[in-house]
């Protein structure tokens, strides 16, 4: 199992959309490395023939009756939105150029 370094923590922060401070990066580099070493023992179990379990109670293709029911009212959703305009969520720019 690989150990984790500062570069990787910075990269993970970017992937996870966390604007980590310098001290957080240092702290998490140390802690994630400790946690990963502590759980490395799971690789001791040779498990080639073992099927993975993703879900404790196996179920496939669970359907319910296709009965139309009203969704949430827009005004209710708007109340919880950080920014709302013209019946839509208002979000920051999604393209590269600053506004």
């Amino acid at each position, binding site marked *: 199992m690989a150990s984790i370094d500062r570069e990787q923590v910075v990269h993970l922060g970017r992937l996870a*959309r966390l604007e980590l401070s310098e001290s957080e990066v240092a702290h998490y580099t140390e802690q994630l490395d400790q946690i990963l070493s502590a759980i490395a023992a799971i690789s001791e179990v040779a498990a080639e023939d073992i099927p993975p379990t993703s879900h404790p109670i196996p*179920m496939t293709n*669970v359907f319910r009756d296709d009965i139309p029911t009203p969704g949430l009212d827009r005004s209710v959703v708007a109340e919880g939105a950080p920014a709302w305009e013209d019946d839509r969520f208002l979000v*920051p720019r999604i393209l590269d150029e600053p506004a």
Partner: protein
Amino acid sequence: MNQKIHTMESDLVRQSAATLASAIRQGDVTSEQVTAAHLDRIEQVDPSVHAFLYVNREQSLKRAREVDRGIAEGNISSPLAGVPIALKDLLATKGVPTTCGSRILEGWRPPYNATIVERLEAAGVVSLGKTNMDEFAMGSSTEHSGYGPTRNPWDLERIPGGSGGGSAAALASFQAPLAIGTDTGGSIRQPAAVTGTVGVKPTYGGVSRYGIVALASSLDQAGPCARDVMDTALLHSIIAGHDPRDSTSINSPVPDVIQAAQSADVRGMKIGVIKQLQGEGFQRGVLEQFNAALDLLAGLGAEIIEVSCEHFQYALGAYYLILPSEASSNLARFDGMRFGIRRGDDGTNSVEQVMSATREAGFGAEVKRRIMLGTYALSSGYYDAYYGQAQKIRTLIKRDFESAFLHVDALVSPTAPTTAFKIGEKLDDPLAMYLNDIATIPVNLAGNCAMSLPIGLAPEDGLPVGLQIIAPAMADDRLYRVGSALEAALVDQWGGLLIEEVPAL
């Protein structure tokens, strides 16, 4: 007012939910009076316990009056009608603040109710408010709440367990006779153990997850919390059962937990003691009480058999890969775009910058730690070694349980390796904190059901010890059969429930 009612009113908050419901049914007391007594108690003691994040006195009393009318008119009849309850803040409650213990959801009011909340309302159970928890249910001490820790009523310098420390502390300090918790790796059972209360993690899929903010979807399960086994069973019977809105919900009848809780009979039952969940790492007084409880069970006619679950030693490692992986994905929705707080939206920053600033400001240290761990475990190049391997260990743990249940009806272990520790003691030592869940995690990985109930105080520190009972999936009734027998024997011994020993606040 006659003498009988007067006597009851003075200690309404110390009654069981079953007693309160029966008094309400008979007209000896109203739901409004019972609810008011608990709201008064909250005002009096919660400043020192901090079990609740949100209480709305007027709203609760209004609902209690409606329930009183419903009972009088015959529209509401359930074994817990009129009894108040505390709800973990992970449950969506329509129009009522729901934070999950996180600053990122500060001030958010969900537009709909969780299925559990709807079922409780239909049964005439009255909400007192929302209880404190580790942020997004990540933790074993409630210290990771974004709103400050909850304190253990047995010793205010100690943790009440977690993540459902608020619900457990509310019960142990007589602020509520019933509570709802959720259990992803032990968050119902470990708080029950360290506060001297009872908690059940039902079979995965036994209680609807609809409207419960997801931590790790393949592990999460909501369940009942109370001060005795019968109240827990009554609450279990109200919240359990199939829900078409949760695709993992089990579509078969709920086991008869109430009858099992009445049975108090373990004669002829085979009870397995898990070899791997005792000894090293377990506090001396915890093991002492555990062994005494085994003797008691044997004396009641159960056959005690030692069983080995050899892959349990890998459970913690597998759990701390599967949980963060699922959590990092589930928590991606908290990005400040559609609900919750938003930070850094100055008209110049891009959506990614705003999301990153929002998440950085809104999430606490443990949540960030687990999101990063999960993001790592799911990254290309590491996926097979971490997440893939953890899923295989999950299969091996399931098989360990399956072979054990070929020989025994139920399994037992201490619920937690230690009694309640001091606030701050393990806060920045994630590995030490994770070890609290060593005995509870295997059950979540396998999806079967388990109960924790109090079995005594550890002689060295005078703090409560819990015993865990584990049964196969959809055999939740066995938990109550064993639990009620043990509880009855202990009450005989002590002359009352352990919780009656809790120091006055």
